[in-house]
């Protein structure tokens, strides 16, 4: 139940691509999709991304929905706002759909990355290749590990309040105050647990004051041929999408209105 967020990602094809290669690919796709406001370019990108769903282990509709509903909601919101404020009399269906597709084309690769790739590999890749602060990267990993514990604590705190004789009944104001109070208890607990964890991590040499030598990485992070091939394939895909929409005359640079 609650362990779903902390469980190890399944071993899937996309998860074996180095996270750095995936992040570069996301940047290339973002630039491509944001450069134009036509329908075809993001359409091609989204189709290509959808073919990668199985490679990210997203085969069941429920999994996909759980991972992507916020994205679909925001895409729908963008389209709706654009429809309402479309210039002229008619409703700009095509323009709205293009904008919604653009949101999906930019955000779906992030969903694929999170679904397929072990956060530890992401932290390793970022610190090894891009020299991201280890304090930040591994601190974030430790925090991710605590997240499911917070869910369990939250449930316990709510029950403990009821056991002390406190509930809201049908009063919405009381309910809000109750949630605020429980959230405060949760926050206090999380901070205390976080500081205990920080002490334990520093006791294992994590603090910079004794880092006379550079931190090493036991797992390492190596960019293989398949990672370069993956980036090349994504670049070619983006070039093809742009070329197709230029050739059909649909391409509309975002700054040339």
């Amino acid at each position, binding site marked *: *139940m609650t362990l779903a967020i902390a469980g190890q990602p399944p071993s899937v094809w996309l998860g074996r691509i180095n996270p750095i290669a995936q992040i570069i690919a996301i940047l290339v796709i973002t630039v491509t999709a944001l450069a134009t406001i036509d329908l075809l370019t993001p359409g091609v990108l989204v189709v290509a991304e959808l073919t990668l769903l199985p490679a990210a282990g997203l085969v069941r509709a429920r999994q996909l929905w759980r991972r992507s509903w916020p994205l679909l909601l925001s895409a729908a919101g963008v389209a709706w706002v654009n429809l309402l404020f479309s210039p002229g009399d008619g409703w700009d269906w095509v323009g709205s759909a293009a904008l919604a597709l653009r949101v999906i084309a930019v955000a779906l690769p992030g969903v694929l990355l999170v679904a397929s790739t072990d956060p530890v590999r992401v932290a390793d890749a970022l610190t090894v290749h891009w020299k991201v602060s280890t304090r930040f990267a591994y601190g974030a990993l430790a925090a991710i590990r605590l997240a499911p514990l917070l869910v369990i604590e939250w449930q316990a705190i709510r029950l403990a309040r009821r*056991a002390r004789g406190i509930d809201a009944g049908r009063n919405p104001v009381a309910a809000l105050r109750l949630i605020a109070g429980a959230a405060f208890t949760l926050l206090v607990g999380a901070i205390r647990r976080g500081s*205990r*964890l920080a002490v334990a991590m520093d006791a*294992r040499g994590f603090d910079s004051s004794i*880092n006379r*030598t550079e931190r090493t990485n*036991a797992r390492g992070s190596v960019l293989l041929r398949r990672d370069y091939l993956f980036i090349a394939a994504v670049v070619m895909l983006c070039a093809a999408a742009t070329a197709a929409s230029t050739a059909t005359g649909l391409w509309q640079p975002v700054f040339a209105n």
Partner: protein
Amino acid sequence: MVQQSGPGVRGGGPSAVEVDGFGFRYTGRTDWAVRDAAFQIGPGERILLTGASGSGKSTLLAAMAGLLGPDAGDSRGAVRVDGRTAAQSRDRIGILFQDPDSQLVMSRAGDDVAFGLENRGVPEDQIWPRVRAALDAVGFRYPLDRSTHALSGGEKQRLVLAGALVADPGLLLLDEPTSQLDPEGAQLVREAVTRILARRETTLVLIDHDAGPWLPLVDRVLEVQFHPTQGVPESNGSTEGGPESGQIAPQRGVRELAPGWRPTMPVLPAQDPRSTRSEGRLLPIGLTQGVLQSEGEGPVLWAEGVGFCYPADESSRPALLPMDVELWAGRVTAITGPNGSGKSTLGLLLAGLKAPTVGRVHADPDLAGQLGNTPPHRWRARDLVLRIGTVFQNPEHQFLTGRVRDELSLGPLRAGAGNRAARDRAEELLDRLGLTAYADANPFTLSGGQQRRLSVATALATRPSVLILDEPTFGQDPSTWTELLRLLVEARDAGTALCLISHDARLVAAFADYKLRLDGPDPTRPIPRPVDHQLGGDAAG
């Protein structure tokens, strides 16, 4: 082992510890937690630090770990490890705290052990052999990629121990390493420590409220004898330069206990509880119809075929298989069993805090009163707190106010007792539990044992007819254990039906009238076993 130079160098042998006129006062406190302590620990020695709760043991251990920086408070004197300050020797010190979940960093076992070596800049090719050796040394049985979430508490704590051990510490500090574990988990940790100490490559300093099982392992027992009310030291006898002269400093602040010392065993309340049962019965505040008439008429609260399944649980393993339990007035029912067997879930169902997915919980008309036939999980909280009190595993979840005194009067006030009555009840409970000195303290600043007593007292404050306690004796020393039990005996004699969910075999043996052991969902046995109630049986559970 070949001596190497460079980062993460191995070896160096066991460390010597010298506590030299050390005193410490935490920021924001007026009392000194430790004052002018002086003693020495030789290389390779194994020391158990004991002393009453609040005697400063944990502060001494934190000082030896070099964790008490200037931010934490004022200090006097020094604690030296291998002749340097503890903070300078941090690379050579490993420490294990209570809660494994506040110490594990990585999601996979091997990565977590490697973490300390990475931080010390140990070359990659040396890391994995050392990780494997450390995991072998503590007896960790799983592969390196085992998820740290899938381990029991004792296995997690073993893993944390491997993480400390992998850096070859000269000094290993254990701060209550078993106090959050069940007996099986505690045994796993003690076995692991025994294995790694066999080589005498590290000095050990240990605190554990359950000192007895550690005694065969330690060389000396030091009792910390500091009393926090003795005021501020004006000066201390230490010299700034340290012990160059080689003279042996007198011990101060600790007393060496004679070989053969045994921890005081908890004492059971002397009176025969049943003889006083009919007298002095207390009426619950705000309950006009009075408590249950007498035992023997039937259970006050009973569960009929209750089971629990988490919704949308992909493992679809029920948290609790359907079962029957009865709680009787003035009787104690103990629920035991390994972690994950559904004990705590059963407690929550009986307490009216969770709705069972199958079966139902019934309350006797005397208990339910005007609530009639409604099952307890649908009662309003205010009605519930007068009838069924619950003490949770983690006391901090239950604290609602900023002062110990307010915490105790809150229940009676909400139940409609007057200000006066609520205050009197709070004072009485403060006195009974030895918490009067902390009446105005914030509950979150109390020690673990004090918090536990306070949470039991808050549940007793409204004099509920049923009391459900999840691990009430966790973290208690012998004297507070006895005081807690005395309080529970009193509640029972007043006619309260008690339900204990506990790993504490001594408590269950001494106190339970009925025992119920849950073995948890057994894949080989799909049909739930009928539950036997043993009346006044021996310690079969």
